[in-house]
């Protein structure tokens, strides 16, 4: 457990907390980008280079920008009158705390049972390519279909409806 892990974990969790607690939506979007960056660095620390770079490229380069565009197109810059938290916020917080308690307990109880592999796995992009075209070709094709459907669907859903001529 080295210092780098603690720093990165603190960065990611701070980003996550800031996302949930800040009032202005654009600040929340930027804070979630910090959380994404912290997670990408955690992936790099776990020797998953391809996943780390894909995280930066997809989440920071596309999803964060998508969120920001949606905030701007729906006038999210104006703060609502009744505050940003809903009236039942205590119940939500309690549920989240309960979920964390259960997960944390499960992790601490059972982690000794999992065999620990501590040697660094050497993964080249070549291996990933082979795996994608060999063992995981079916999920790859299905994800391709899914992405096509999602693209077409998002365009249709967000398109301006044609004005009906009276």
């Amino acid at each position, binding site marked *: 457990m080295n210092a780098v892990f603690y720093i990165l974990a603190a960065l990611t969790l701070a980003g996550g907390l800031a996302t949930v607690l800040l009032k202005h939506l654009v600040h929340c979007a930027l804070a979630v980008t910090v959380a994404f960056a912290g997670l990408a660095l955690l992936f790099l620390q776990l020797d998953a280079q391809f996943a780390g770079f894909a995280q930066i490229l*997809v989440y920071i380069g596309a999803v964060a920008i998508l969120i920001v565009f949606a905030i701007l197109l729906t006038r999210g810059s104006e703060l609502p009158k009744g505050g940003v938290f809903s009236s039942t916020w205590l119940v939500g917080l309690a549920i989240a705390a309960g979920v964390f308690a259960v997960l944390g307990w499960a992790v601490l109880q059972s982690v000794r049972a999992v065999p620990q592999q501590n040697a660094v796995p050497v993964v080249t992009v070549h291996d990933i390519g082979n795996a994608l075209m060999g063992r995981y070709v079916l999920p790859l094709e299905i994800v391709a279909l899914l992405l096509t459907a999602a693209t077409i669907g998002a365009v249709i859903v967000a398109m301006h409806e044609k004005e009906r001529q009276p």
Partner: protein
Amino acid sequence: MTPLATPLAGYLLVAALLFAIGLAGALTRRNAIMVLIGIELMLNAANLNLIAFWRFGPHPEALTGMMFAIFSIAVAAAEAAVGLGLVIAIYRHTNTTELDKINRMKG
């Protein structure tokens, strides 16, 4: 704070905490876009879990964990796109993104 028994426990706890934070965000905020941001945080926490288990598990050369995480990233991006498209479409209809006010199907 008790010292963590193994590095794996540390990563899993971070992932669990991030998941809980994302869940709290999705459940307590009023704006529809914040709910989607909370969902993205939850998906990211799950990805961290997958990669941590891949790294510290028995067969990292099978690449299962990393593949799962990469597909999860792709699917999450698609879902964010469709979700935000829906939010924009609803905003055009009802001129608001607050979840309390989008209740025309109530009762």
